[in-house]
Structures are given as structure tokens and as C-alpha cells.
């Protein structure tokens, strides 16, 4: 949401005004930050406007982050390595899950790539989850159902 004083100070604004602002990125905005919704606060950032993906927030297209497929990317930093973990990409043309090992440090991602490994071909990211354990197939199915309800496609396009 754009910063507007009367909106900001309105008594109807949530007590957690900062969260209110965080959750309402406008259509077409460059994305400088993706907030980690887990308790681990591993937020992803992109401070260079040229490399920022674009927020899509509209009733026609849905809600997702569009990477340009050229040089847009976000990055996060892991304090500890992930061994035998799981990555789950939810995109506009499919969901992808895979086993993953990641070293501690900074990792780049797009809608179809994490730390230089490809997962599908979509440029439109609906959600990205990273687990530090092997997620059972049953729960991958549950997660898939959930993200499909948020606008992701269930099956990956070839």
C-alpha cells in the first residue's frame, strides 16, 4: 500500500500497522523484501530496483511475484546448512518439490531456480517453502492443494 498519512493514522488501522503495510503491496510495485512467514525470520531481499520482481495483485491475474526471467532475483541467508531438506515451489504453471541440500550462506532464487538449480520454468511465483526435513508425500499433497487455492497451478507444464 502506498504510504498515506490519513490511512496510516486511521483508528480502523490494525494495531499492527506495520503488518498492515507489509501485506498490501500494490500492483506493479517492485519487490524489495519478501517476509518469511515462519518464526525464523529468514526474509528475502533485493535492494537493487533493476533486479526486483514485480508484484501482481489483481483480480484478473491473481497474486504472485513476476520475475523477468533475465536477471530478477531475491536472496536469503541461511545461518545453518540444510541437509536432506525439501524445497517446494508454487508457480502459476505448476508446483515443484524436491529434496535439497544447501550450505549456510546467501542463496539467490527466482520463480524457477534456487541456488542455481532449476525447478520448472515459470516466472510467476505464488509461494516458496523450504523445509529442513524430508516432507512426506502426503503433506506435499496437502501443500499443493493449499497453494492451488491461492492461484498456483497443480501440475507443471512441460
Amino acid at each position: 500500500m502506498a504510504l498515506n498519512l490519513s490511512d496510516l493514522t486511521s483508528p480502523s488501522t490494525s494495531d499492527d500497522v506495520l503488518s498492515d503495510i507489509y501485506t498490501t503491496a500494490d500492483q506493479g510495485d517492485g519487490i524489495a523484501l519478501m517476509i518469511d512467514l515462519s518464526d525464523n525470520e529468514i526474509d528475502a531481499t533485493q535492494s537493487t530496483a533493476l533486479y526486483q520482481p514485480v508484484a501482481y495483485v489483481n483480480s484478473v491475474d491473481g497474486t504472485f511475484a513476476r520475475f523477468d526471467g533475465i536477471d530478477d532475483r531475491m536472496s536469503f541467508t541461511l545461518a545453518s546448512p540444510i541437509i536432506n531438506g525439501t524445497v517446494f515451489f508454487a508457480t502459476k504453471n505448476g508446483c515443484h518439490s524436491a529434496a535439497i541440500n544447501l550450505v549456510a550462506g546467501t542463496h539467490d532464487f527466482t520463480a524457477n531456480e534456487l541456488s542455481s538449480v532449476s525447478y520448472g520454468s515459470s516466472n510467476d511465483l505464488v509461494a516458496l517453502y523450504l523445509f529442513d526435513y524430508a516432507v512426506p508425500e502426503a503433506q506435499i499433497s496437502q501443500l499443493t492443494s493449499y497453494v492451488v487455492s491461492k492461484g498456483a497451478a497443480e501440475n507443471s507444464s512441460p
Partner: protein
Amino acid sequence: MSPALTTEAGLFPQAGLYNRAGLYLRSGFAPLDLNPLLAYDAESSMVAPFEQPTLDLDPSNPSSLDIITATRAGVATYTDANGVVQSASADTVRVDHVDGVPMILVEPAATNRFTHSEGVNNYSNLGKANCSYSVDSNPFGGFSASCKITSNTFTSSYVRAVLQFYSVSGESNYFTFRVKKKSGWFLNAQSGNGTSPSSVILDLSGAGYISSSGTTASSYLVKEFNDYYLVGIETLQTGTTTAGLLNLQFYNNSSLANYDLDTVEEFFVTGIQWENNSTVATSYIPTSGSTVTRAADNLVISGSDFTDFFNSGGDGTFYAEAVFRQDNNGDGQSLLYGQSLNYRFLYGWDGVMRAYDGATIASTIPTMFTVGNLTRTAVTFNSSTIGISLDGSSTSSVSHNGNLSSANELNIGNAPNDNLNGHIKRIIYWPYHSDDL
């Protein structure tokens, strides 16, 4: 790390709906149930550059306050999340809890002139109409001894405890005390000597405040916490004598009629505070034999801590949530202040919010805040304009000489002659001006 709510097979064993593969379908499923290491969801995670604050002082996240340098000579008190009064060391930010909500407490210096808050029985000027005073072993809030008032049996009267103080005609005095709940009993707390003493009546059974009256009837305080009520009462000394009274009258009927008392009753009154020349209560100042003065809070962000978040020479927007105890006090109630009077980002003035750059005042008039209520206010500036808003009001804009953007420190609540007396729930700063300008 294990996923939540699963068996080893990864199945949800609860009764309910299952899909064709035999998997449980919980209508309230959320990905966070799977305990991800990280989770980005476009609906909730995407933040545009403009919306990133560079400063977020949030007392519910205590580490966010580490950037503040606090200066206060001597200890002071605050109320913790359980409603217990605690002692804060010198030179610390006090996070006080108001109805359970953590807020920064900023107060000017104040003195408790009631010299024996540790035990009312030690106070020399007691009236003992039909009761005695003693120290009770039950501590008040884990901090100070409780005082016990024990009644005598009597006919056609009421339990009456009297504390006498000495004040000058024309002075305001503010008393605060804590009284323990007592089922079936009512308290009429009266203060003052002369015409129209102030009075606050409350139901000690749990209903609390009933009414107030007298010269300063609107300036009272009744707050419930745990088994106690915090009661505040202001009086304007109008008598020609210098002696005033704090009268605590306990009744066993809501009509406050005299009654026969055949049993001995005990009442617990503690944490008594007498602030002279004051019209509001401040935090508890323990005493034990002499008056005690609590120093003012002085909170500042300066040096590299300031330049790390502030857009020096550029645009900016401050947002603040605060609860004022007063609408003015000399030169106002400062919320955010730079290095001098010409760098006043936000301050209260007769109920409106203002900003001042040394040349021009931006004001939210006619929109005003209410003392005691949570107020949301914001100021934004670029090189030529200041905008200000209060509780949803449209942005009021005036010209700006550039001073605000050239501040080199941020004082939080404190300022010469206009120290805040109140609480700050949140301060956020964005290094951009708002779209209103």
C-alpha cells in the same frame, strides 16, 4: 525438526474428512503447520521498497529498543505484563504495561511526598477514627509492603481511615493508592480541605468506578489490576488552612449509609503516592521515611545510531502511537524532537498534534486527541512541505524550511520544557515522504 501434527507415516489421524487417497483434509490447513524453515507467500510476503521502514521501535519486541540511549538518574518503577510493579535500573528504557499492552513509559521528574508508602502505619499524620493501621505480610505487587486497615466494631458509623497532608491553598495535589477488592464493600475516597473536596466512589466487589464529584471531579483514575484497584484523585486545595485530608471511607452498602459493624474487617490499602502541584498520576515512587524524587526519563537516538536509520538531508515520515496523560504542560507534550526547538517532529499542544521547523507550525487542528486514549499520529516532510495527520484526519500541509530533514538526533518523549508524560506504543520511520505531499 519434525513436522507438527503428524504420525511417523505423515498421516493425520484425526477423525474427519479424507480424500480418495485416504489423506486427511483439514479445512483449516496452513503451511506453517508443517513447520517450514522459511515460507514466502505472495499474498502476505511481498513488500515494495517504499514501505520498508528503517526504524521500528516496538516495545513488544524489546530488542528494537536497544538503539535508544536512556539516561535517568536513579531507579524508577514500571508495571510488568502480570500487573506487578517492578523496579527499573537507572539509565534504562522503561517498558510499562497498560492494560497488558507493552509501551515505552516517559515521564518528567516527580516527587512522592507521602513519606511512608512502605507502611502507612509509619506515617505520623493518621486519623484513627475507628480503625488501626499495620503492615501486612502480603506484598503489593511483589514490590512494596501492603498496609492493612483494621476496623473496630461500632454502631451507626463507617470505617474511616484518614491521612493528613499539608499543602498550600491554591495548589493541586494528586493522590494515588491501591486498594484491594473486597466483596460486598464500597469505597468513598475523598480528598481536599475546604470547599468541594474531590470524591471518587467505587464498588470493591469488582464493578469498580461508580461516580466522582467535587472541584476536580473529572480528574480521577480507577484501574483494575489483579486483586486491586489503582485509584487516583486530584484535589485543589481551597481551604484557608494548610492541612488537607485523604479520607478513605468504607461502606457495606451502595447507598453509603451509616451502619452497625459487629465484626472486625480488614482492608488493604497500599502504594500511596502524593504528588504536589500535579494534576495527573505518574508511576509509583516508593518511599520509606522521606520524600523521594524520580528523575525524568531521557531517551535519545544519536550519532551513528541516528544516521543509520535517518535520511539525512532528504525526505522522511514518522508514525507514532501514544497515550497522553496531559494535553499540554508548559510548551506541550513532546513525542519526537530533534536537537533543538527548531526540530520538533511531533508534539501535543492543547489537544492537537503539531510539528515545527523553527519557522512554521503544522497542526492537526481541528482534529484533537483525547487524553488517556491511544492516539495515532504521523508527520511527513520533503524539502518544501510538512504534512501532519492525527487519528485518520486528512493531511494538513504547510511550507517547510528544510530543518526537519537536517536533524541529527531523535529525542523520544523528552524535550526542554515539554517532556512527555505518557506512553509510546510504537514509532516507525520511513526514509520517504508520503504520497500526500
